[in-house]
């Protein structure tokens, strides 16, 4: 079985997963006791006619299965409904927030991988040395740290006490045009928060994976052959040790997404995370469904990509 079939199979599985996920999302969301009525019609001053009219205009009076079919069809054609709250197409609202979250996530993932691997290597290079122990303990430190607490600590130290960095948002209120320095200043704290926690986790993972590899028989053989530690490490251990971490990266997209929700809340970063938080509380169904779809899609795609990359890299895999 060739590589092409491997990919196709994986692709089919991914699509199937996506479908299951969206159905599950729909089911869960519609079981909410609050319901969309509670949101738009929460003003006690609205009349009965007003409520019926709103319900009609938003299609909430149709039976559930009709709503479901419409939902699936919509998802496929890109029509994700109209936000109850914003009265704009859900797609537009969500798409509008994606750049902000990407701006936060992409550098964060990149840094997490780069720094995480670098630190993991540094630590595994001489296991249990002082450097390793110091790095590991710092890693534990951030691993156990609640992200929102860290974010808030950083916020208060740098924004409140030292007043060198802005407190919230993505850009300065009165910024004119595109000012990269401004973006950078606003990005610094949220990205720091998001990255620190994940780097800790990731580097520990890399380290343990590498150390494990170093225990393997073939490493001992290599040592027996008289190769230097350096060669063994960089030529043999690294390549095999890093492979499993490639798989982890797929999972990390999920973690970073979760971290983004908390971080965006602390720093008022106008991205998807904040939108999730707000929309859930507002029972803005179309947005919530759209967001779940996007998040799951991102994780599924990330896993798919890492599957493929892994398949390419690992010669042991037989593509079944």
């Amino acid at each position, binding site marked *: 079985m060739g590589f092409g079939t491997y990919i196709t199979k994986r692709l089919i599985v991914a699509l199937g997963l996506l479908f299951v996920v969206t159905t599950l999302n729909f089911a869960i969301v519609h079981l*909410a006791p*609050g*319901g969309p009525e*509670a*949101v738009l*019609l*929460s003003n*006690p*001053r*609205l*009349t*009965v*006619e*007003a*409520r019926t*009219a*709103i319900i009609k*205009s938003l299609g909430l009076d149709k039976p559930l299965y009709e709503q479901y079919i419409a939902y699936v069809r919509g998802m496929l054609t890109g029509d994700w409904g109209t936000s109850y*709250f*914003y*009265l*704009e197409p859900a797609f537009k*609202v969500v798409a509008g*927030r994606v750049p902000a979250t990407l701006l936060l996530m992409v550098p964060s993932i990149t840094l997490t991988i780069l720094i995480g691997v670098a630190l993991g290597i540094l630590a595994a290079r001489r*296991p*249990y040395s*002082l450097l390793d*122990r110091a790095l*590991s*303990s*710092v890693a*534990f*430190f951030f691993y156990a740290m609640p992200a929102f607490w860290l974010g808030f600590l950083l916020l208060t130290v740098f*924004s*409140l*006490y030292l*007043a*060198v*960095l*802005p*407190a*919230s*948002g993505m850009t*300065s*209120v*009165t*910024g*004119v045009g595109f*000012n990269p*320095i*401004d973006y*950078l*200043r606003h990005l610094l704290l949220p990205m720091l928060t998001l990255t620190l926690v994940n780097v800790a986790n990731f580097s520990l993972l890399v380290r343990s994976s590498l150390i494990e590899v170093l225990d393997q028989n073939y490493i001992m053989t290599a040592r027996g052959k008289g190769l230097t530690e350096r060669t063994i490490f960089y030529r043999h251990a690294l390549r095999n040790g890093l492979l499993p971490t490639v798989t982890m990266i797929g999972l990390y997209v999920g973690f970073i997404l979760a971290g983004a929700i908390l971080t965006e*809340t602390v720093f*008022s970063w*106008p991205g998807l995370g*904040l939108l999730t938080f*707000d929309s859930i*509380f507002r*029972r803005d169904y179309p947005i919530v469904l759209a967001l779940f779809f996007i998040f799951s899609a991102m994780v599924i795609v990330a896993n798919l990509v890492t599957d493929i990359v892994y398949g390419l890299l690992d010669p042991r895999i037989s593509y079944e």
Partner: protein
Amino acid sequence: MSTKNLLGISLLILATFGLLQVGFAQTPPKTMVVAITAEPDPTDLNPIRMITLYWMAETYADLVEWDQNGKTEPGLAQSWTVSPDGLTYTFTLKDGLKWSDGQPLTSDDVAFNFKIFTEQSTFFYYQWASIQVPDSNTVTGFALKPGAIETPDPKTVVFHLSAPSATFFIYAGGWPILPKHYYEGMDLSKNNPDVTTMVGSGAFIPHERVPGDKIVYVANPYYYGGKPFLDQVIFKVYRDPTGAEIGLQSGEANLMLNVPAQDVPALQANSNLVIGTEQPQLNTYIILNHHPKLIDGSDNPVSNLLVRKAIVLSLDLPSILNASFGTFYKDANQIQVPNMYYLGKAVWNSTIPMPEWPYDPTTAAQLLDQAGYPAGAGGRRFTLNLVIAGQPGASIIKMLQLIQSSLKTVGINLELVLMERSAGRQRIFRGAVPKDWNMALGGISSSPDPDVNAFYMVSTLADNGAAGGFNAGGYYNPLVNQLTVLGENTTDVDQRVAIYQRISGIAHEEVAVLELYYPVEIHAWNKMYQGFVLGLGNPPHDYWGIIKHQSLAKVNIVEVTTTTSTEAMPVGPDYTTISAVVIGLVAIVGVAAYMIGRRGKKAN
């Protein structure tokens, strides 16, 4: 790491620090940034939807304006008359009125305005008024039929009513007038107006909106009060007050609305800031469930008048409020707010004691015994729950917790149930009757007319099932209902005021609701910005009077000597504490490092 690498890294770090020092994006001249902490992101600038009206206070002028003393003054209308029989209202517009795009503002716009609000009234804020009258498109006695509104010339609007109305003037006068040439043909229930092309008559018109972040308003050169000094007003949305305060401190924001009471001392310490207060027409109270049983069939002690009396007697509200809000509140003792007027006469009932109830826990305990709820083991009598919808501020939480502990001393166990906003509102206002809660935190905006509080808080005239009045607890007194209807139809000032005072009295005697306080709004701004007018806005924009167009138009920036603002505000822990914490943390890390080391050597 090689020295070369080290050098490179150090240079990078230095460069970053250097960049950081590049000053905050300075506010361009003649701009003011207003910090808002709005729980929901202001969704859209659609005048049909209630939520947005606060944001429109700058954009649209009304026919009549009210000054900070509750006196009427000309708005878009220069003058007005009412016929002796109360059936004809004539408004004469000012000369030379223009919209922000230069188009003339005429009586056609006024006529169109009423048409659009009553036709698309499904969503409209004032729809409530129509509940009282059989026709569904009416504003108390005013029905939109052919000939109801006449526009004999571009400057005159005539309204013909079918019956005299106590409230028509207040609504008609306080209605934001929308431009016909902009909104004609737009279905506002389906589409939001395009912010970039908006047209208005107020001092500042919105022109740019970044959802969740900010709204930019631009000065209107044709504003009838004269072109404003400021070029731009930007409303920036912060998620919480702390962020807004940091913004205010750092100069990112120049005015902050709704400062939480406990933060005021800290802001006052900053000599660059000015604190001002407004007394909006808000009433914060606890809704009491008057149904004898809860939905699960269990007994509801609160439905018993003796229990209600016991509850209010066991609370030392003045102390509780003082501890929670400092000096920024007003004790509440009746359902009407202190600054509620009808045609200049206050409806405040001064015979109701202030504070409303004495603090008398002994009598409270006796009343509870009398009511048939003796103290059991550990002094416990029964448990009540209090539902709160949405995230209240820290002061409110503190107040509720103090109430909780006061009730505990007379044997009542109070559970505070914090629910997120929409599910909470559903549970309080729209859940099936009877309810599953004993008490709920409520608040009502009382403007523009005394009828609002009477109608919603203590009458059962609103559709409690679907639309749900604020009287979610089901307090019912037929006399109160009768009086409420009477009040709507009485135009004589003295009679009408007496009616509402009577209603307040009855509500007090029967403890219809548990009155808490009338909130005081606190605003803080940079002292360079001067000219704010506080306390504006009788109907319909009673919140944030400070940003009504008459106030904003007058704001100008004055150069004053500013003290370096990096001092003051939150001092933070002192150096000894900081060093102690840092040393502690380093110790933890060090010990952890040491610990790990041990393990490695002994691995078998």
